[in-house]
């Protein structure tokens, strides 16, 4: 009897696994087929192409630029959001008058679709009639209008800032869950021992929050790496591809230029990159925990 038992877990997991496989593996297989084929403008296969599409992507100078920017974009938003969310979550965890309202305000941007947020920012960043310029002018911070979206030097940092803004609510939610899981006894004990707030943070709060930080880093990296709407709605990756990240470049390649073979190759590479990062991070994080 004991021997047949292990079948049950697999049987129970099977339906979920099949569904996930259908949703994830089938498109992956399709992408694999398209990326090694000669494909016409409309996605119809026209023969085997080997690795030609992959070589074409690798030798495109715009690809290297977009790859580099994707790293800056992902790193900037994930750690920017982390740096903002941690103190915000700690404040919201404290008991103060109006905490409920404050929590709602922090969470509110989450309820708005990212595309809408990005479009509102596009209006706000308009050089002549944007809210940002007129606000800064009223505060006497600037004299002449800044054309925020005209060049990458101003557009890309602003896009990262919008990215941080929309990532904060989700991250705060994870952290609030984490903070409420830390037992109050620990803090009480620390206070009795005469621990300073900084020591309490370093020795208790932060170590116990590690798993939650790890979750936030992995999930946010996955979302942000593939995040399309902010950049597309504000600059479409322009001017001259200078704010393109891989996913906007992928869209142009596939649906503007009709190079669906190369686009499929690129999306498989992006998938591999993201998978490799996630595995590496989870491995490092779990090793740390064991130590």
């Amino acid at each position: 009897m004991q021997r047949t038992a292990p079948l049950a877990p697999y049987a129970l997991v099977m339906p979920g696994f099949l569904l996930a496989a259908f949703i994830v593996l089938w498109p992956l297989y399709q992408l694999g087929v398209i990326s090694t084929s000669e494909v016409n403008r409309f996605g119809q296969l026209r023969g085997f192409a080997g690795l030609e599409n992959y070589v074409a992507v690798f030798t495109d100078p715009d690809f290297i630029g977009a790859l580099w920017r994707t790293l800056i974009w992902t790193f900037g938003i994930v750690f920017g959001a982390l740096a903002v969310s941690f103190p915000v979550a700690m404040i919201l965890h404290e008991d103060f008058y109006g905490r409920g309202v404050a929590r709602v305000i922090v969470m509110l941007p989450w309820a708005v679709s990212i595309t809408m947020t990005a479009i509102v920012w596009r209006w706000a960043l308009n050089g002549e009639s944007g809210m940002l310029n007129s606000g800064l002018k009223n505060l006497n911070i600037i004299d002449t209008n800044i054309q925020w979206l005209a060049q990458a030097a101003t557009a890309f940092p602003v896009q990262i800032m919008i990215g941080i803004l929309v990532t904060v609510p989700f991250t705060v939610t994870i952290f609030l869950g984490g903070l409420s899981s830390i037992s109050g006894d620990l803090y009480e004990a620390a206070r009795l021992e005469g621990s300073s707030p900084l020591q309490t943070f370093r020795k208790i709060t932060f170590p116990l929050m590690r798993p939650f930080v790890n979750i936030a880093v992995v999930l946010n990296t996955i979302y942000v790496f593939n995040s399309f709407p902010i950049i597309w709605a504000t600059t479409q990756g322009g001017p001259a591809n200078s704010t393109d990240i891989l996913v906007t470049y992928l869209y142009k390649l596939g649906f503007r230029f009709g190079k669906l073979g190369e686009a499929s190759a690129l999306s498989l590479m992006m998938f591999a990159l993201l998978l490799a990062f996630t595995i590496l991070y989870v491995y490092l994080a779990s090793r740390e925990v064991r130590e």
Partner: protein
Amino acid sequence: MKRFTLGATGLTLALAMTTTLASAQSLRVTVAEYSAKTGPYFEEAAEAFEQANPDADVQIEVVPWDVLLQKLTTDISGGANADLSIIGTRWLIDFVSEGIAAPLDEYMDEDFRGRFFDVFLSPSVMDGQTYGLPVAASARAMYYNKDLLEQAGIDGPPQTWDELAEAAPKISALGDDIAGFGMQGKEIETDVYFYYAFWAYGGDLVEEDGTSGLDTEAGYQAAETYKSLIDAGATQPGVTAYNREDVQNLFKQGKVGMMITAPFLSSQIAEEAPDLDYGVTAIPAGPDGDRGTYGVTDSIIMFENSQNKELAWEFLDFIFTTEWRAKFTEGEGFLPVNPEVAAMPAFADNADLKEFTALLPDARFAPVIAGWEEIAGITSDALQTIYLGEGEIQPTLDAAAAEINEILDQ
């Protein structure tokens, strides 16, 4: 017992419905959303068509312009495309060479052909076969703000690019938030905004030897003209942050002296800024008197894999009657593609439209090249680099031309 009867009735009803559904011929039509009026117009046309053809069931799919090509690509690759679709005529070559668009000549007679202006029908003709019918047509001309020109002491709109280069800084000098020449530097048609000057200087997008014309004197001169306008502060600042709509908005606000765009700005001004005193004139000429206006048509095509070609054709025949064409053209602010529509008072007596139609003999269309969108993309990128001052004119255009030549070679 009662319940049983009810059930039986329901079953009969369901059966009856299935049979009517089976006998109805369905027709799917993908249309581009030009404005808020597009969807309702086609729904109305479909309804009227269904009344005349009780067997037909017409489904209209309204798709925003920006994602139209993406939707068509996805639909076609999945074999789930509609029977009819509006496309940009510049994409037609790709549809024809892959055997996706069906030739329409077998359905057309001389009478039907006679409904169109030849200049608009001809871009849809390839290898002697007609693959699309022009559903929307537009040309470009220069809009100018009469008040601003007057204040700057300029009598009459500039006729050449040299005159424009002289007039624009004077208008810009009128105020901090006033720009002489509104320049588009972002998103769709950034390249086209450059062709206006490029053609005036005698350029050809594709030279006779089949290579790109960007790396010619005309290309350098046109880019030089634009770049000096930017450097002289004669355009709005930060041109690479402005797409066509952004520049049009500045014009409507009375902050731009001159800009080049399509007839639909007239209808927008009539609705949103009726007090604006403006005029429409030809795009400035080059040193040799060359003028280039851009003609654009969108075509409606029939898919080769459509199961209901006869019905699809009847629908085309229906929406290309004068009554429906007039309604569409007036609502959207396009140029009439049909002589009968053009002769109607609403169009014949419209001064703005007259300026546009007068330009048509000079009009050039996007060249018929597979991969045109990519060439447009490369050109726009090169121009943005130049406008931003991140690249010298000649080497940047030479590099873009080299890239384009590789596509043209294929």
